């Protein structure tokens, strides 16, 4: 038997392949393209306490090697999620993580309290790294102190698996991850998009209304791979590697440098069935190489010192 299972917190993933937040919708559309019995899981779009209207267009532009997005956390709020979406996804057979985007500590605590009364999902991915939030007060990831204040005590609110999603655009992320580990978080999702921008030369204007946007896709893979490698050295809890994964080779690279599992974002937009395809091709690869357990791959990088 080839064993692809990995464990993060209390959650066992059937394969280390997860759909990333913002690129997996609520899982509903994804279920039409992937057999959820054969993938690790997915992370929902970001949920905010109250309904949040998204950003003005343009929201997506393709650039060389990837895409810039400025979606702006569009969602109907936590109550709507509990009433209208959770009932539709709760029986899905893969792991389901709810991505939470707080604007304050109160926000975060209220959301978890409301959600934690319900069943039908595996855990939370606390997202303090949205590239489309320009208000300094809620840009927790840019400040170690603000992040500490926000995350302190979250563990006491829930028994479910707790992940923290961090940005590669701030050096603070490594210190914040160490703090989260001490606080009892079960894993670090790394990396979110890189903050970038785009100029319309004709108009001499920024293309995005917020100026900045999140850069993702194949061009970020070498950057995220190195960041994930550094993160694996910084914390002992599992690191979920994210950034530009489009094929089996990309996935293996992240696992080899020590990611316990991986998330796919842009890859899902291009190929909505990629989660099942990568899970299958990983299994085939292991069979071919006579690797019995995925643990033989994770962190197997040979370092020449």
């Amino acid at each position: 038997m080839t064993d692809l299972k990995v464990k993060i917190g209390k959650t066992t993933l059937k394969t280390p392949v997860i759909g990333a937040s913002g690129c997996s919708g609520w899982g509903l559309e994804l279920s039409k393209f992937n057999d959820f019995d054969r993938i690790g899981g997915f992370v929902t779009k970001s949920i905010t306490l109250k309904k949040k209207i998204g950003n003005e267009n343009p929201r997506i532009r393709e650039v060389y090697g990837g895409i810039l997005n400025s979606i702006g956390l569009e969602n109907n709020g936590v109550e709507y999620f509990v009433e209208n979406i959770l009932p539709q996804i709760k029986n899905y057979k893969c792991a389901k993580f709810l991505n939470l985007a707080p604007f304050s500590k109160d926000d975060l605590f209220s959301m978890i309290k409301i959600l934690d009364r319900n069943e039908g999902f595996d855990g939370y991915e606390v997202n303090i790294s949205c590239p489309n939030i320009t208000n300094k007060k809620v840009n927790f990831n840019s400040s170690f102190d603000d992040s500490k204040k926000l995350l302190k005590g979250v563990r006491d609110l829930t028994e479910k698996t707790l992940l923290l999603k961090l940005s590669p655009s701030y050096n603070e992320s490594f210190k914040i991850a160490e703090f989260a580990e001490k606080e009892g978080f079960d894993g670090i999702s790394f990396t979110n998009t890189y903050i970038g921008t785009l100029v319309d030369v004709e108009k001499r204007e920024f293309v995005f209304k917020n100026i900045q946007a999140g850069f993702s896709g194949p061009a970020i893979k070498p950057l995220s791979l190195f960041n994930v490698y550094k993160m694996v050295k910084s914390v002992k809890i599992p690191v979920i590697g994210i950034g530009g994964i489009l094929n089996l080779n990309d996935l293996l690279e992240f696992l080899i440098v020590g990611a316990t599992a991986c998330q796919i974002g842009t890859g899902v937009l291009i190929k909505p069935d990629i989660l099942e395809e990568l899970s299958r091709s990983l299994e085939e690869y292991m069979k071919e190489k006579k690797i019995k357990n995925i643990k033989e791959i994770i962190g197997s990088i040979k370092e020449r010192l």
Partner: protein
Amino acid sequence: MIERVLKKIFLTDNVFLLEISRSNREDILLGQFASIKTSLKDKILRRPFTIVRNEKNSITFLIKVVGSSTESIGNFDKGDFVDILYPLGKGFKENLDYENTIFVGGGIGIAALIPFLRNVKYKLIFGDREGEYEEVLKYFSLKGLHCQEKKGKFKGYPTDFLNRYDFDTIVGCGPKVMLKSLKDYSVKNDKKFYAVYEEVMGCGVGLCNGCSVKTEDGDFIKLCTEGPVLDGKRIVYD
């Protein structure tokens, strides 16, 4: 899904017809589209195109070359493989009273109207800025008022000719400025207005909220799953 090119013909210098095999048996509704992935290294996202014809064993697109993906699709040859997802979008299910409906197309926007104009009697105004769509109209046997911006028998914008017809409903597809003036007209004259809308898409299947369209009530709707045919009076065209 992988399909194969059956036929490709350039009808004008930069507008071509692409017919490919159809292995997907799902019903294809009016207004639905497909998204095609090219093998270009500098374009990773799929590109959306209206399904203008669907037969038992084939589907057809009418595509204008505007950038590198459309150029690369234009280079497909008979027998080539096509990486494609279809049918996408919410089909148009309302009952149209063709007697009282006017179709208004601008430029390549005509592609989205073609599926509506098959085997029925219809009224059509087609705006063709440069007068380059003659062959397209001929190929699809489209009949209607064919106007051009600066020359020809009917000189002007499509909206200049609306008052020649009786109708209570408009179905329009074309540049945003045209749709905007159709909205203004419909609001002023109390007409129903369906816009077949376009927006840059991320996934085309409802995963990313990249294709959101702003509405009058300050909200957004996802074009790829709620459209592309929308209530044209609800849209904010900016």
